[in-house]
């Protein structure tokens, strides 16, 4: 670990959740409530074409007919869908074309979060950022440079206007409106998000990144990400999120769709650090997200990596549909819960094509009175000859009041399938802590070290800049859980 990491624990002993500030900015907020009017209002605000409005309205109809699922391993909180504002945006200004025109308050906010929006300031220029503030995309950096390669990276709203055919062709093909209640809600009221298209044979020259920020009160955030990797292309995409500290719970119901065509590869990484609520479990974000990718073409690959430390409830299962022959799906996850946090997360791998392979590595860490569940599905279809899966889900318990649970579903319908699943649950070894303390490392740091070692397999999958961030995040989150 770098010296920087070593200082983290002290550094953050003072700050509990350092992204908890709010930004004072003029906002355009829709009235609370969900109805056809709301959907029409959002659609009109965004100046959307007729077909998209119809699509939204159809989703709303589905949403109204659906009821809350009951199978999850936590009590579903009462969410009053009429008490949420579905649209919040920084007050509309004339379209920004250069940095000077972006509200300085906003730039300040993102600077505080460590997200440089000012292209001039990034010398290396390895990451292009799409910053989403409440419901709308504020600024996408490096668009011009990306355009040289033919890569489209813009906000969803712009994509609808500029590339309607592409959006129309792929929107909702992986996560249909009817998929689940939150996907339906998202389809009806989604306000913005990111759109990425990598043309044939292009290896995207830089990491693409979206940064999500909830700021306004009483709002929900509903964004939609759509990434299409055309034949033989490659893209690595990062996603980060934070929110201010508030007493009430806020809803984040996003949808992410990934489409990999023949020989394409998409790598999607998430470092999720929404506000987790206070020590008593008051407030925090409900992170109910539907993420799914499809390996449509032969030899394609989709890889999900997630580091989940925030949110009062995290409920998501990034999945891969392995339709193309020889396609590969991967899922790497570290989920850390403490205090009253709940995580019910895992992955689903649907093997449909021949010679498909998938790998799931899930590391759960629970501390305090939190509950951490792994729920996964590995399904081998009738035609999925020679499918291969390896699943490993480990749980680490810190303290005697937390819980760790695993619910792996394994369904095989083809006799050539080879599957392995293993899971262990244990607490942090006292002898490991003893060994480290004996060498002068204080117990808290020792735990941080052990946890980082335990999560290494997953953290290694992250792009380098994010890996450092994620390590810090784990160390911070463990703060105070060793007693």
């Amino acid at each position: 670990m770098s010296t920087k990491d070593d200082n983290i624990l002290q550094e953050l002993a003072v700050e509990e959740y350092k992204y908890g500030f709010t930004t004072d900015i003029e906002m355009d907020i829709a009235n609370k409530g969900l109805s056809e009017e709301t959907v029409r209002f959002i659609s009109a605000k965004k100046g959307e074409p007729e077909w998209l409005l119809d699509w939204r309205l159809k989703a709303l109809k589905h949403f109204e007919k659906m009821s809350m699922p009951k199978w999850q391993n936590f009590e579903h909180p009462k969410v009053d869908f009429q008490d949420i504002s579905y649209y919040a945006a920084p007050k509309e200004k004339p379209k920004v074309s250069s940095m000077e025109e972006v509200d300085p308050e906003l730039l300040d906010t993102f600077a505080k979060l460590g997200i440089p929006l000012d292209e001039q300031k990034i010398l290396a220029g390895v990451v292009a950022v799409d910053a989403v503030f409440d419901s709308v995309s504020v600024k996408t950096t490096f668009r011009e440079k990306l355009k040289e390669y033919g890569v489209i990276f813009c906000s969803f709203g712009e994509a609808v206007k500029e590339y309607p055919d592409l959006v129309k062709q792929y929107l909702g093909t992986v996560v249909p409106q009817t998929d689940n209640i939150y996907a339906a809600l998202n389809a009806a009221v989604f306000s913005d998000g990111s759109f990425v298209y990598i043309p044939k044979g292009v290896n995207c020259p830089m990491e693409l990144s979206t940064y999500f920020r909830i700021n306004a009160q009483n709002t929900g955030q509903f964004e939609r990400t759509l990434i299409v990797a055309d034949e033989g292309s490659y893209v690595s995409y990062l996603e980060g999120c934070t929110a201010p500290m508030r007493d009430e719970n806020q809803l984040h119901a996003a949808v992410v769709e990934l489409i990999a065509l023949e020989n394409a590869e998409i790598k999607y990484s998430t470092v999720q650090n929404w506000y987790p609520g206070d020590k008593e479990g008051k407030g925090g974000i409900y992170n109910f997200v539907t993420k799914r990718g499809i390996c449509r073409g032969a030899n394609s690959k989709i890889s999900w990596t997630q580091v989940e430390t925030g949110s009062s409830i995290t409920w998501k299962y990034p999945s891969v549909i392995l339709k193309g022959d020889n396609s590969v799906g991967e899922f790497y996850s570290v989920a850390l819960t403490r205090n009253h946090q709940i995580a019910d997360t895992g992955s689903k791998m649907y093997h449909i094509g021949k010679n498909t392979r998938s790998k799931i590595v899930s590391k759960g860490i629970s501390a305090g009175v939190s509950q951490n569940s792994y729920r996964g599905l590995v399904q081998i279809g009738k035609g999925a000859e020679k499918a291969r899966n390896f699943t490993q889900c480990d749980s680490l318990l810190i303290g005697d009041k937390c819980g760790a649970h695993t619910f792996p579903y394994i369904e095989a319908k083809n006799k050539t399938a080879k599957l392995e699943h293993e899971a262990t649950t244990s607490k942090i070894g006292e002898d490991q802590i003893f060994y480290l303390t004996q060498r002068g490392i204080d117990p808290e740091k020792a735990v941080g070290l052990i946890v980082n070692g335990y999560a290494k397999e997953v953290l290694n999958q992250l792009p380098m800049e994010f890996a450092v961030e994620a390590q810090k995040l784990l160390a911070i989150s463990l703060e105070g859980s060793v007693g």
Partner: protein
Amino acid sequence: MITQVSSSLYHQLVAFFEEELPLKGYQEPLGSIRKEAFARFKDSGFPSLKMEDWKYTNLQPLINQHYRLNDSIPGRNVNIDKAVIGGLDTYRLVLVNGHYRKDLSDTITDSGVVVCAIEDGVTEHEFLSHFAKYADRTDNPLVALNTALHEGGLYIHIGKNVTLKKSVQIIHVASADEAVFNQARNLFVLDENAEAEIIESFISNDHSVSLNNTVSELVLKEGARLQHYYLQVADEKSRYLNHTEVKQARHSLYNNYNCSFPGSSFIRNNINVRLDDTAVESHLYGVTLTAQDQLVDNHTIVDHRMPHCESYEWYKNIAQDTSTAVFNGKIFVQPDAQKTNAFQQNNNMLIGDKANIFTKPQLEIFADDVKCSHGCTMGQFDEDALFYLKARGVGEASARVLLVHAFAFDVTEKFSNTHVRAYVDSLIERGLVID
């Protein structure tokens, strides 16, 4: 809820309970227990695919038909040859369509042992403190139905410090000339330091259609030890819904060996073990070999409630033809159950072209000082191993038999009774479809 269950059996049962039973007049104290249980069943109806525990097991085809609710010929003749285990001398107890048949059964002469039909057990001094006290706490609607309408079954009580001289073999025979719905209820109580081996065989006669909804409650007091076998060899037309609920006290040991073979088209076993005291040990083993259109579904729960307990579970499934094998193993470690060791393993061989295997090894852990692990694999015949054997002159068919034996060995070697083990090995060999 009720409107969804439009199956004829449901309505038949409701009508039977509400109209016919009052005429017969069930006696207290069971009367009120039955009434209360029936209210629960009436409310929930039969389980549907929408229930998590019945996700892969569709009861609808079974309950969409009309059944006789009691045996048309109570004293019928039956053939029990199929249940004979070579070389094993046992006390034989025979139940026909759930009813204890003294005329076909051996008398157990060991002192301190009570064996009687469940309806005669009511007068035994401990009966009411155990009956319907354990299984009914689960939310299985079929248990409620059985509690409400059970007919027949066995009550066995083994006294303090008694070790049975011979194994007890209980032979469940399904035999009828029209479709019959049997609901036997068993209660086995082992007093302090009692020791026994109970082997339950399920067979059927005359290719009769039957649906058997059996509930067994087992109570093991301090230091009691029980070896418990389920050997499922019935015919295609007999279907089984078995629920076993085990309550264990300090220092007790419960071993369950659950074996299913080609035959019965529908088998659902629920085996729940509650480790309700410290220093308890439980082992659950299973071998399932399925063929043709069979569905065998094993659901187990190992519930660690107190510290210093140990559980060990190992299930092997081999699915052939178009059959389906389901395994769901739940391990709970409750907050107080520190120092628990829980191990679970599920291995599957998917051989049939259209066979399915669904498995869900599940851990729910609320205590931190524990060692818990589970593993699950799915695969086929190892081509290298087959080649190795063939290269040494072993024929294809024998090589496959050998490999399946080797696969099942991890479990069969744990059998406490060598005769049963040989019997199971031969059934595996016979049940294999080698082409």
